[in-house]
C-alpha cells in the first residue's frame, strides 16, 4: 500500500475516532466511510501493515497507526490554516490543496509552519488541530509572524488576521468598532488596559479580549 494511501485512510479513521469520543469504532461504519474516499479494501491493507487491529467487529488503531493518522490530520488542518490565513484562499477552495500538502510536509517544515502561524488550535472550519511537539514546547524557531494581540509591544502596527472566539457578543462588539480581519491596528498601551487604534477610532480592551485577536506584525 503506498504511503499516501495509508496516510489518507488512517487520517479518516483517526477523525472517526475523535468524533466517537471514546466509544469503540464499528467496523461497518468505518468501511462505509473509507469507501466514500478510497476504493478497494483499505482496511485489510492497513491491517496487513500493522496499523489497525480488527476484533469482534471493532476497529482499533495500533500505536503506529494512531501516530500516523494523527500526524496526517494535523498536517491537513495546518495546511488549511496556512492557505486560508496567509495565502488568502477561500475556505472552500483550500480543501484539495490541503489534501495534497499533508503528504509532503516533513516534520521540520511542519514545526516551522505551526510556529509561524502561532500554534493555531483550530482549522478554518473550527475543528481542533492535534498538538505537535512545537506547540507543547512553544519553542520560537522562527519568529512568530502571526500571534495574539496580547503579545505585541506598544507602538507596534499589525494587521488583524482572525478573531478566535466563540463568544458572539464579543465578536459583534469588536466588529462594530472596526476590528475585523484585514484592518490595520496599532497598539498604544498594554497596562492597565490595552489601548488600540483602529482607523480613526481608539478603543480600550482587557487582556482576555486581546488574546482572542490574532494579528500579523507589520514592518
Amino acid at each position: 500500500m503506498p504511503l499516501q494511501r495509508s496516510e489518507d485512510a488512517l487520517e479518516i479513521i483517526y477523525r472517526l475516532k475523535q468524533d466517537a469520543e471514546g466509544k469503540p469504532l464499528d467496523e461497518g461504519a468505518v468501511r462505509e466511510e473509507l469507501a466514500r474516499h478510497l476504493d478497494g479494501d483499505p482496511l485489510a491493507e492497513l491491517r496487513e501493515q500493522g496499523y489497525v487491529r480488527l476484533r469482534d467487529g471493532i476497529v482499533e488503531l495500533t500505536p503506529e497507526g494512531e501516530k500516523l493518522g494523527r500526524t496526517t490530520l494535523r498536517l491537513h488542518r495546518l495546511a488549511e490554516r496556512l492557505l486560508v490565513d496567509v495565502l488568502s484562499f477561500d475556505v472552500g477552495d483550500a480543501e484539495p490543496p490541503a489534501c495534497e500538502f499533508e503528504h509532503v510536509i516533513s516534520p521540520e517544515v511542519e514545526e516551522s509552519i505551526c510556529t509561524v502561524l502561532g500554534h493555531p488550535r483550530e482549522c478554518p472550519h473550527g475543528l481542533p488541530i492535534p498538538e505537535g511537539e512545537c506547540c507543547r514546547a512553544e519553542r520560537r524557531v522562527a519568529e512568530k509572524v502571526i500571534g495574539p494581540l496580547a503579545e505585541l509591544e506598544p507602538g507596534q502596527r499589525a494587521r488583524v488576521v482572525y478573531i478566535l472566539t466563540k463568544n458572539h457578543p464579543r465578536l459583534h462588539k469588536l466588529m462594530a468598532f472596526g476590528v475585523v480581519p484585514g484592518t490595520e491596528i496599532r497598539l498604544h498601551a498594554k497596562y492597565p488596559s490595552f489601548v488600540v487604534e483602529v482607523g480613526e477610532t481608539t478603543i480600550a480592551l482587557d487582556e482576555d479580549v486581546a488574546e482572542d485577536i490574532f494579528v500579523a506584525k507589520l514592518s
Partner: protein
Amino acid sequence: MDATAAGRGKGAPRRPRSVQHRRRHRFGLRRRVPRELPRVALVGSPNVGKSVIFHHLTGLYATVSNYPGTTVQLTRGTGHLGGTLVEVIDTPGVASLSALSEDARVARDVLITEELAAIVQIADAKNLQRSLLLTVQLAELGLPMVVDLNMADEAAARGITVDWRALAEELGVPFVETVATAGHGIGALREAIGRPRVARLRVTYDAPVEKAIGLLEPLMPPCPASKRALALMVLCREPGMLDWLGKRLAPDEMRRVDNIIRACEDNFDLPLFLVVQRRRREVVDRLLRRAVRHQPKAERGVYPPSRVALALTAIAVSLALLVGYGGEGPLWATLGRYLLAILGGWELAGAALAHAEEKISLRLTNPLFGLAAGAVVLYVVYRFVGVLGAGTLVDFFESVIFGQYINPAAEHLCGPVLGMRQGGLLYDFFVGEYGMITMGLTYAFAIVFPIVTTFFIAFGILEDSGYLPRLAALANRLFSRVGLSGQAILPMVLGLGCGTMAVLTTRILETRRERIIATLLLGLGVPCSAQLAIIVAVTASLGWKVLLLTVGAIVFHLALVGYLAARVLPGEKPDFIVELPPMRMPVLGNVLRKTWMRVRWYVTEAVPLFLLGTFILFVLDRADLLGVLARWSEPVISGLLGLPRQTAMAFIMGFVRRDYAVVMLREATIAGGGPLPELTPVQVVVAVVTVVLFVPCVASVFIIIRERGLRVAAAIVGFVIAYAFAAGGALNYLLRALHVFQ
C-alpha cells in the same frame, strides 16, 4: 414636511396601545406632547454628538421615559424642522442594528415599529467606515432618511475629506455636514429633515441568503419597515426578533421560518450574521473608495497666544487674591477668585487640548499620569462640590433662605394664621421637629439640592470632555477583581455625588451580576456628597491619622465585600471593550441642559422619597417609638461598638438624613456640643465607619427596590445592616486591642 408625512398625522389610524408610551410620574412635571405630531428618530453610535444635535433641534424641554417593558430610557422633544412642529426621539447610541444589548434592541424596535416620518442618522465624519455600515442597515429599512456627517472639524483636522455630495447622489438621500459643538450646519440639517428620502440602495447577498429572504418575506407581518429588512433580521437570528415574530405568526408558520433559516445556515460555515456583514462591508468599501480622500494632515492652527496670556493672568490674579485675603475675606474677593480661577483654567484646558490632544489622551490611560491627573480632577471637583456646593451654598440655603424666610413663614402660617395648636399633631406634622417643611423640604432643598446640582455640573463636564472612559480603562483591572468591569466607574463616581442617581446609572452595566454587585457596593459603602464633606471635617479635625484610618477601613470593606460577592454570585465578568473618544472641550450649553434634566429628575423622584422618610420618622416619634428603637439597639451600640448609647439616635436619623448622623458626631467631637458626650478618637473612627457602611438613605433604598426588585433589595439591606455592625464591632475591638490612639 412633505404631504405624506404631515398627512400621516391627522388622518392616521389610532396608534395601538403598545406604541403609546408615557410613563406615569406620580409627581411628574410632564409636558404634554400632542400625539398627532410627525415623528423623527435620531440614530447613531454613541459619542457622535447625537445629544448635542438633539439639543439644537429641540431646545430645553425634553421628557425622558422608559420604553415599555424595558429599563432603557428614551428622550423625546419637539422642534420646528422643515417647516412643521415635529416630535424628535433620541434613540440610545448603537453602532449597528444587530441588537446585542437592551439599548440596541430598543433602538431597533423604535425604528421598525414606530411610524416615523424620517430617520436622521448622526454619523462620525472621520469614522466613515463604521458609520456607513449603519447607514447601509438603515437604508435597507426602506424608510425616509437623512444622514448628518457630524464632527466635520475633527475629520478635517485629520486630513480626511468626504465628498458628501457623491454619497448623497449614490444613495439618493440628503447628506449634510455639521459641527454640532459649534452650531455649524444646523440650519442645513433642519431644512434637510424636511425632505427625507428613501434610500435607493440594494445590497445583493449570497445566493442562499437571497433565496431565504425571498421565502421569508411573504411571512413577515405588516410593519412600517421593509419586509426585506425584517426577513434579514430574522434570518440572522437577531436577539428578540424570533420572539417578536413568534407573537405574530401561527405555530406552523414559525416552523416554516425555522426550516428556512436552518436550510440557509447549512450552506455556510460561518454564522449568517457574518455572511451578511461581509457583503455589507463590500458595499461600504465601494462607497468609501468613491467618496473619502486622505490628505496630509491640515496645518494645526496655533491657539491664539493672547488668549493663553489672558488665562495665565486670570489665574495669577486669583492666586494673589487667595494669598492676600486668605480663606476669609469679603464676598467679592472669594467669588472673584473662584470665577477667575475657573475661567483661566477653562481657557488653559482648551489651549492644551487644541495643541496636544492625542498625547494627552494617551497619557491619561497610563497609570502614573492618569492617576496624577485623576488626583487633580478629584481636587478640583472637591473644591467645586465640596467647598462651594456643600459649604457656601448649603450654608446660604439653610441659614438664610430656609432659616430666615421659609421656615419662620411656615411656622407663622401654621400657627397664628391657620390656627394650628403649637405642639399639636398638625402643627408638628408640618413645622415640628420632624415636620414636612422644617425637616423634609429643608433637607431636600437646602442641603442636598445645592450639592447634587454642583455635582451634576461637574459630572456633566467630565462626561462631555471624554475623560470618563479613560478613567474606566485605568480602573478596569482593579474592578475586575470585584466582578465589575471598568464601566462601573461611572456609577461609583456618581455614588460620591448622590447614591440614588448612581443606582439608576447601574443600568449601563451589561450583566445582571455586575449590576447587583455595583448596587451592593453603592448601598454598602460609597459615601454620597452630603456625607463626604462632613466626614472629612469630623475626622480631619482629629488629625490626618484618623482620616487615613477611616478611609482605609471603608475602602478595605468595599474591596472585601466586592471580592466575596464576585466569588459567590454566579456568572462571568462582561467584556471590557470601550471607545476612547477624542478629548473635547465640553459645550457649556449641553452641560447645563444635562444638569437641568438630572435636577428635574431629582426634584420629581428623590424629593418625594425624602418627604416619605421624614413622615416615617414623624410617625415613629409621635408614637414614641424612636426612643424605643434607640433603647433596643443600645446593646449593640454600646456593647459591640463601644459607643455611648445616645449614638443610637444618630444611626436611626441617618436612615433619612445621611448627614444627620455625621453632624451629631461632629458636634460630639467638639467638647460638650450637641446631645452626645465627647467621643474619643477610637470611637469617632468606629462611629464614622459604621455609619458609612450602614444603610443608604431612604431615597436610595426605594430606588434599589425599583431597580433590582424587592427580593434583591431586601437581601442587600439586610446584609448591609448586619455587616456594618459586624465591621464596626471588629474595628472597635481591633483598635482597642492594638491600643491605637492610647
